[in-house]
């Protein structure tokens, strides 16, 4: 890949991301972190494409492990984001059910 094209893509995408995230709701700081984590889960795409072009046995083993860990990370991040949205929209829990920590 031409390094100049790569650099332009990185600059444009970073600028786009910065302007997009800057307009987000400032009350939800944690969601930005979860969104970055979900996007980091897309590394599974890089891992799978590395696995399908691997030619040696050690290369296949290492990339297969990379696919396993990245799929775990991607699914975990999506699941956490889903839970965070549910927590936000969930009605407040009564103190008797909320556990000792909140009851105290």
């Amino acid at each position, binding site marked *: 890949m031409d390094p100049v094209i790569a650099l332009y*893509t*990185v600059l444009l*995408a*970073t600028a*786009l*991301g*910065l302007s*997009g995230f*800057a*307009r*987000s709701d400032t009350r939800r*700081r944690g969601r*930005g*972190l979860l*969104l*970055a984590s979900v*996007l*980091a889960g897309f*590394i*599974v*795409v*890089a*891992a*799978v*494409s*590395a*696995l*399908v*072009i*691997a030619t*040696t046995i*050690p*290369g*296949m083993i*290492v990339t*297969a492990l*990379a*696919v*396993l*860990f*990245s*799929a*775990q*990370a991607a699914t*975990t991040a*999506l*699941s*956490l*984001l*889903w*839970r965070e*949205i549910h*927590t*936000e929209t969930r009605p407040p*829990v009564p103190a008797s*059910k*909320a*556990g000792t*920590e*909140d009851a105290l």
Partner: protein
Amino acid sequence: MNFGLQIDLIGWFALVTILISLHGLSRGSSNRLLGPRRAVVLLAITLVAVLAAVLWSAGDNNTLLAAIMILLGVATAPFSARRPRTLSLRAEQDSILNGLSLSTIGSGLAVALLGLTGWFETNYRLDNWDLRLIAVVSVFIGVWTFASGLMLWLRLNAYLPESTPTQMQQRVGFVVLAMALGLGLLAVLFPSFARFLMIVMVLLALELGALSAFGIAITQATRVLGRHLGLLGAAIAMLGYVQESLFLLAIGSLIMAGAIQYLYLRRTIKTRATDAPRN
């Protein structure tokens, strides 16, 4: 075979849907057309579609192995995203932080393993210096992220004793970082001695991860996670460069933007708001 272009074939459409999903998620429930739940579903569908496109275009090359590994990874995810025992908001937030650190561990390991593959699958003694540099940096970022995530998870679950951050810890951290970067640079410049240099660099990265997780108050755990997510974004962008995929380059850059926004810019806006003169 150029897989970068095959990722990008569907990647352009995927990038558009990702941006739409991010718009829906960052605006919250005020967006009636695409609420947060629909946006998460759209993100998941996009990920599955891109993966399916890569597997479909690969033909018979390790496709079954890749599918099995993906399914195994998905099956282990519920263990790292466990729900808390109580229904309190505090327990839910702690549980999400726990899951986030486990997700960071997985991503860090994946980046380190992909960097290692990039080093050994190519002929590192003859290939271009930029590919060697990317492989070494990926291994370093991956191992550092893995160690930091692991230490944070251990601290969050009280498996490790409480530690008070000192200035000496930060200085030692900077020295270890400088040594690891120097060794990585030497490994790129002198590939004949790279094996020994990379082993020492990996050990230093493990040490650095432990130092960076111990050298903070536990209330700042999200800042460490934010920093490492930004580093993971940089690693994904570099992998995109190696695989000649503009999609991965754009995704990595978006992650870096999110991390920069979380770590630095949001605070600036907040400070400006509090510093503004009151009429």
